């Protein structure tokens, strides 16, 4: 079942738009993630699709039929909530069977579906327990089983993993993705965690400031961000956004220190250039031409994260080889050897400069780029 969002909008009062002009097409069997910071309206959008919140403007189509004003139960979908929303007075089995009973399925079919769903989420030995006797991860599985048991082919998930601890979350990510593929479910998945979206989704919608910022595959979003928000939201460590101005015909100078050669001339204006820490190389103290001073050093195991200040005072994040030694106060020489994204002053992407280094020898930092 495909889903079509056509210029959806939501306003609670006349001029206060919580969401505006949301247009997207979600293919049948697709894992579609809606990502954004808290308060960007992603849960509201999900509830509009579910029918729990009325749609103010625009049109929603489910499976080719207009569903804008349909009550939730006629939209043929299920929902998994962040807080699980289990019925505490019902056993696991009854929780999973709840929707089927409400929809008056034949008893035999209910039993079959429930048994199958409980088996899929590995809760067979807990099927007679109450939610209070289950761990957080198990409760999450019950909520999943409830969605699976339903005959609806669309499943809406509202940050289903955010209440789990880090390790369990990573495990559930894989399980959820496998389950979705196995059952051919169309999943719309709301999360504020960009890593979750990147690892699970076929397509990602980035919401911010009540509007869609970008829709694309995880690779697209990472490699071709549409604006500075998307650029800095995806990827850890975050992309550096440096102020830039035109200093020659085909050259930008970033933060008065770094030179970036351009493939074509640009109009004279203020620009912002985004460079991921992995697209910067650095030469340790004592070698090269120093232009950045180390402020903090964080050892992450596989790499070192450096927070530094360029000579004009602009903060910049760098990654370095863990075998090298860096100390606060060290002066380093930083250069560009990966992709750089040129944004206009409003933050909209203009073009990308493919990774080419301008000076000094290739160094370790770019290996992960």
């Amino acid at each position, binding site marked *: 079942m495909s889903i079509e969002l056509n210029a959806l909008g939501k306003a609670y009062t006349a001029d206060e738009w919580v969401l505006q002009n949301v247009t997207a097409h979600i293919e049948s069997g697709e894992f579609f993630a809606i990502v954004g910071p808290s308060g960007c309206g992603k849960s509201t959008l999900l*509830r509009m699709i*579910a*029918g*729990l919140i009325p749609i103010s403007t625009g049109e929603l189509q489910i499976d080719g039929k207009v569903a804008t004003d349909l*009550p*939730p*139960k*006629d939209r043929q*979908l*299920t*929902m998994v*909530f*962040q*807080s*699980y*929303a*289990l*019925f*505490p*007075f019902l056993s696991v089995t009854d929780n999973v069977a*709840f*929707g089927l009973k*409400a*929809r008056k399925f034949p008893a035999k079919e209910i039993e079959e579906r429930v048994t199958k769903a409980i088996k899929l989420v590995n809760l067979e030995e807990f099927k007679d327990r*109450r*939610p*209070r*006797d*289950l761990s*957080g991860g198990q*409760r999450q599985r019950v909520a999943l089983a409830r969605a699976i048991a339903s005959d609806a082919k669309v499943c809406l998930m509202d940050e289903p993993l955010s*209440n789990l601890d880090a390790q369990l979350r990573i495990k559930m990510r894989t399980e959820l993705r496998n389950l979705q593929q196995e059952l051919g479910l169309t999943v719309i998945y709301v999360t504020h965690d960009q890593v979750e979206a990147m690892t699970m989704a076929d397509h990602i919608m980035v919401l911010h400031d009540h509007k869609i910022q970008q829709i694309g595959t995880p690779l697209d979003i990472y490699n071709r961000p549409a604006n500075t928000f998307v650029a800095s939201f995806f990827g850890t460590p975050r992309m550096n956004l440096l102020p830039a101005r035109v200093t020659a015909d085909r050259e930008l100078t970033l933060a008065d220190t770094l030179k970036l050669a351009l493939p074509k001339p640009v109009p004279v204006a203020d620009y912002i250039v985004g460079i991921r820490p992995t697209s910067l190389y650095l030469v340790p103290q004592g070698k090269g031409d120093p232009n950045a001073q180390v402020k903090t050093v964080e050892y992450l195991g596989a790499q070192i994260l450096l927070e530094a200040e360029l000579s004009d005072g602009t903060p910049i994040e760098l990654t370095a080889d863990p075998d090298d030694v860096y100390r606060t106060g060290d002066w380093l020489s930083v250069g560009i050897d990966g992709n750089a994204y040129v944004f206009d002053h409003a933050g909209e992407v203009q073009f990308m400069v493919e990774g080419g280094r301008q000076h000094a020898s290739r160094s370790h930092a770019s290996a992960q780029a």
Partner: protein
Amino acid sequence: MMLTKTHKTLRYLVLVIMAIIIIGPFILGFWTSLLPTADIAKGALFSTHISLQNYVDAVQQTAIMRYLLNSFVISLLTMAAQLLFCSLGAYAFVFLSFKGRDFLFYVILATMMLPFEAEVIPNFVTVRQLNLLNHYAVMVIPFLTSAFGIFMLRQSFRQIPPELKEAADVEGLNHWQFYWRVTLPYARISLFTLAAYSFLESWNQYLWPMLTTFSDKFRPVQDGLRQLQSQETFNNWGMIQASAVIVVIPTLIVLFVGQHYFKDGLNEGATK
């Protein structure tokens, strides 16, 4: 915190003294109900003439069983009606949105400030107009619902996580189904509490039945006891005590049974 032995002893001592003060009259009442009236009149409290004769007499010679039946009918009807109407009212205040909802709720709250005694006269006039005097109806109809019950259940329904309502909406439950299959089971502890409360409240009614019932056919227990005492020929104190004990038994049953349900944590695990 570890308590020293003296501390502990002192604490228990205080508790025991308080318990004696509170339970004392009950024990005394129960004890005298086993004694012949002659001994009670003499003040011979430590008499050894213990028997259940007073109970036999009470059941055989007075209308106490009829009073009990009346009270059971009235209390059970009142309890059932209050559970139904208070929960429906509270549901509306929590899960339906309509104009003036909060105002209406405050009006209902405001009626709690009014003591029952202040309502007695207008209520009496009303039930007399309706020709309900001296009938079960007169003791049930004015108490079909209660502001306190609505208030209590509203607070309890508000604890229900909104996600449960959303989950039910997605599954297509209408209001009646959500009320019956989610709200009531979720709030069952509050419902048990209200049931016990309204049953006892009705059981212990005295002023209102005294004004509105004139015959043993409809008189409830509390007024029945008073009736026994005031009958001229009746000065059989042992039997009155026995009747009083009989009247107290249902109260104790309700409290003991109720206690079983007042457990914490029954609703854990709905969310998070």
